[in-house]
């Protein structure tokens, strides 16, 4: 399968248009397409992790090349000048050496190159590094070059790339001016070019999907790929199906009790002394939290796929309870994996799940919390993939889960948007939501992403403090890595071993973060802060006494941050807090931690 490289990218929208490409090129040599290291590093935030980022150089020094490779970072280097063999050998990443081809003699030079790949191009005009002139592909005929090393460039465009591939069967095709209009990249042409290479290929092919910038993907064992792909297809189908939406909203309204109010918190507003505070009341959902929105959506989808067995993981137990509830409603077989530690912390929820007819499996491995419950649920899915759906509870896991969970939870943000417009005639200034894996937050934020004037703040669990080793502040302290099927941010040690997270709230006790959140943090669209166990507990008391609403420990993190945020806001501003769940499940913890309360 021939790979595609889109070269000479300078703008974010064009990088995004090239998301299905196998490689993107940034030109660092003098050219009208030249970018700086800083510009390329910014653009690289929008490139999926497994897409090659290739830097184009002309007679640059080794140091210059190495600094650029590290600064962007780049995965390959392309040389367009008269670079000596020593330089080619000294570059650590794979090297592409480019040759301008006029005659058969030029072709012979290709064969002597020490580079990992050779790129053939038509001779340049003003600048070196590709001219857009059409290369005479027939020159390559009868020349003994390993096609696995060959990259073809030079005058390619959506109209002729097919012929070029048939004639030369190269490793990759490279295009720059062929996807431009008036010397600027053209989104439509970029997509058309990739489509020509990928979709019109004689071979049916498989390709990567599901990235948010560089995060996401489908990093799962091969045994699961079929199930993940089937799910992706099934979800794509129902997404466009009005009948499915009707059914989903029917259960949200008749069973869950939506829509939930956007309650004006009069006493909190007065007490916190800043903006008008509104509460999005996910705590009023049947089963007590936002988790049920997603459980219904996925259960309906599973049944459409003919699957009547459900496996799920749970941390605090809210997702487990929501799943067990929906499985009872639809008569589905239900297995819930839950860490031994969480079972101890959340005994009431364990009993609720059992009462609802679910089988609760205790996970004793690792830290015996949510991360390990996900591992066991994935293993169970691997072994029972033909008839079982994995109903994941947060915006995590391999594609399509993060997208699908977000879409099912977006009802939170959609209702909020409609309600605030009715009540205030304008959008809020700030919205806060707690983040563990990130499902209530992404559901709340997503409908507001394009409304740049709305400030979005995600609140992580700082546990005993982000400078201790007992926290779950993944975006504050985490680094890039792969866990549970996605490239995201992780709490991990120097050897890439995933660390245990800590939070008093079992629902935020996860060492990763949904890939879309990682991207939103990277691009700065959402700001992520953190709240300690003690601050969250104080917020529980505060809200309970001011509003008569006892929040879940998870939601209390958003409330605690709201109290801080309110101090920097004024009376004519509006702040919305997502109260993701109610505190019933946490009563034992509250009774223990807040003993002596008066």
């Amino acid at each position, binding site marked *: *399968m021939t*790979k595609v490289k889109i070269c000479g990218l300078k703008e974010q929208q064009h990088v995004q248009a090239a998301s299905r490409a*196998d490689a993107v090129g940034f030109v660092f040599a003098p050219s009208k397409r030249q970018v700086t290291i800083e510009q390329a590093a910014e653009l690289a935030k929008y490139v999926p*992790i*497994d*897409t*090659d980022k290739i830097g184009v150089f002309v007679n640059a020094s080794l140091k210059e090349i190495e600094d650029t490779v590290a600064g962007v970072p780049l*995965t*390959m280097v392309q040389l367009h000048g008269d670079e000596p063999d020593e330089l080619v050998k000294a570059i*650590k*990443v*794979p090297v592409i050496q480019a040759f301008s081809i006029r005659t058969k003699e030029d072709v012979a030079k290709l064969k002597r190159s020490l580079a*990992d790949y050779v790129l053939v191009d038509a001779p340049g005009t003003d600048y070196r590094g590709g001219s857009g002139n059409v290369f005479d592909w027939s020159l390559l005929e009868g020349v003994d070059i390993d096609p696995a090393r060959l990259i073809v460039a030079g005058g390619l465009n959506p109209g002729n790339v097919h012929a070029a591939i048939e004639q030369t069967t190269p490793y990759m095709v490279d295009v720059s001016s062929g996807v431009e209009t008036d010397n600027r990249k053209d989104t439509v042409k970029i997509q058309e070019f990739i489509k020509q290479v990928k979709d019109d290929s004689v*071979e*049916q*092919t*498989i*390709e*990567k*999907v599901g990235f948010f910038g560089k995060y996401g*993907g*489908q*990093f*799962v*064992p*091969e*045994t*699961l*790929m*079929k*199930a993940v*792909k089937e799910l992706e297809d099934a979800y794509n189908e129902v997404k466009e199906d009005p009948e499915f939406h009707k059914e989903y909203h029917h259960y949200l309204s008749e069973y869950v009790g939506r829509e939930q109010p956007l309650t004006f918190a009069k006493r909190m507003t007065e007490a916190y002394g800043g903006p008008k505070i509104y509460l999005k009341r996910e705590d009023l959902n049947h089963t007590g939290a936002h988790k049920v929105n997603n459980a219904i959506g996925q259960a309906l989808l599973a049944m459409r796929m003919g699957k009547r067995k459900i496996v799920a993981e749970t941390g605090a137990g809210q997702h487990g309870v929501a799943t067990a509830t929906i499985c009872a409603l639809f008569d589905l077989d239900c297995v819930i994996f839950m860490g031994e530690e969480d079972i101890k912390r959340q005994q009431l929820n364990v009993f609720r799940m059992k009462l609802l007819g679910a089988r609760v499996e205790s996970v004793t*491995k*690792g830290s015996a919390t949510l*991360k*390990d419950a996900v*591992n066991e649920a*994935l*293993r169970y899915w*691997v*072994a*029972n*993939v*033909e008839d079982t759906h994995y109903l994941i509870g947060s915006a995590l896991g391999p594609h399509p889960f993060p997208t699908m969970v977000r879409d099912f939870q977006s009802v939170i943000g959609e209702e909020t948007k409609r309600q605030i417009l009715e009540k205030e005639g304008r959008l809020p200034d700030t919205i806060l939501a707690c983040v563990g894996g990130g499902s209530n937050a992404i559901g709340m934020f997503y409908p507001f992403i394009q409304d740049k004037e709305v400030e979005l703040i995600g609140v992580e669990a700082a546990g005993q403090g982000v400078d201790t080793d007992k926290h779950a502040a993944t975006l504050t302290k985490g*680094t*890039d*890595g*792969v*866990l*549970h*099927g996605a490239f995201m941010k*992780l709490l*991990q040690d*120097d*050897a*890439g*071993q*995933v*660390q245990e997270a800590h939070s008093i709230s079992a629902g935020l006790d996860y060492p990763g973060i949904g890939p879309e959140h990682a991207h939103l943090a990277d691009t700065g669209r959402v700001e992520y802060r953190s709240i300690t166990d003690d601050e969250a507990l104080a917020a529980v008391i505060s809200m309970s006494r001011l509003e008569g609403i006892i929040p879940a420990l998870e939601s209390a993190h958003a409330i605690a941050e709201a109290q801080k945020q309110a101090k920097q806001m004024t009376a004519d501003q509006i702040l919305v807090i997502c109260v993701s769940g109610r505190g019933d499940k946490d009563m034992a913890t509250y009774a223990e931690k807040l003993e002596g309360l008066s």
Partner: protein
Amino acid sequence: MNRLEQLKSSGNKAFVAYVMAGDGGLERLREQVQYLQGAGVTAIEIGIPFSDPVADGPTIEAAGNRALKQGVTLQKVLEELKSWTFDIKIPLLVMTYLNPVLKFGVERFATECGKAGISGVIIPDLPYEHKQLVQPYLDKENIKLIQLVTLTTTDVRLDDILREAEGFVYAVTIKGITGSRDELSQDVKTFMQKIRKKSPVPVYAGFGISKSSHVDMLRDDVDGFIVGSAIVEAFNAGKIEEIEPLIRAVTTA
């Protein structure tokens, strides 16, 4: 020449043994590899411990946890391999989850594997879709990236994966995680025949292979066998000699 290619040209049935690096202490790896080489295995997979091994069953996960407790890391394993001066005649492979590789640096991983004389790398949570993440770096070192195919791999995927397969194809014999099984299902045989017909490289069966009866059942349909949990268990129990009949059942006959 990559040792995996030599192995292919020899024509015998292969026996690939898996060991968890650092189970019982990293210093034991050397003797384990020497023992297995002496016992006649045709290649050795060196497992890198990982905190969240979702493709592995309880035996290998427990071995990995024992190794992690000893502070074993990818870097330490590669350093250990590089320090070996004894004669290694058979291909060595590294089996690791993706995250330790990403943290170590993919390019550095490939270079260090090259220096350590590694012939192939297996990354169970790096599917075909994302192999570009490591393939170009391994290519540079002439190290093969071994692909897995399973009973649930669709025909379209199978064609794509096999077209670009190198070294050998790791054919997973069960729907599930690694670990010893009593029986292998009958459709495994048909599945192996299908893969072998299409594959440009040898087809080795793995996951759940622990008995001579498994070997007998699939012998005519594959080019070799990969044995993991049974060996890990035997090393841990101090009874590795009990694995020898299984090695003989594959390599002789």
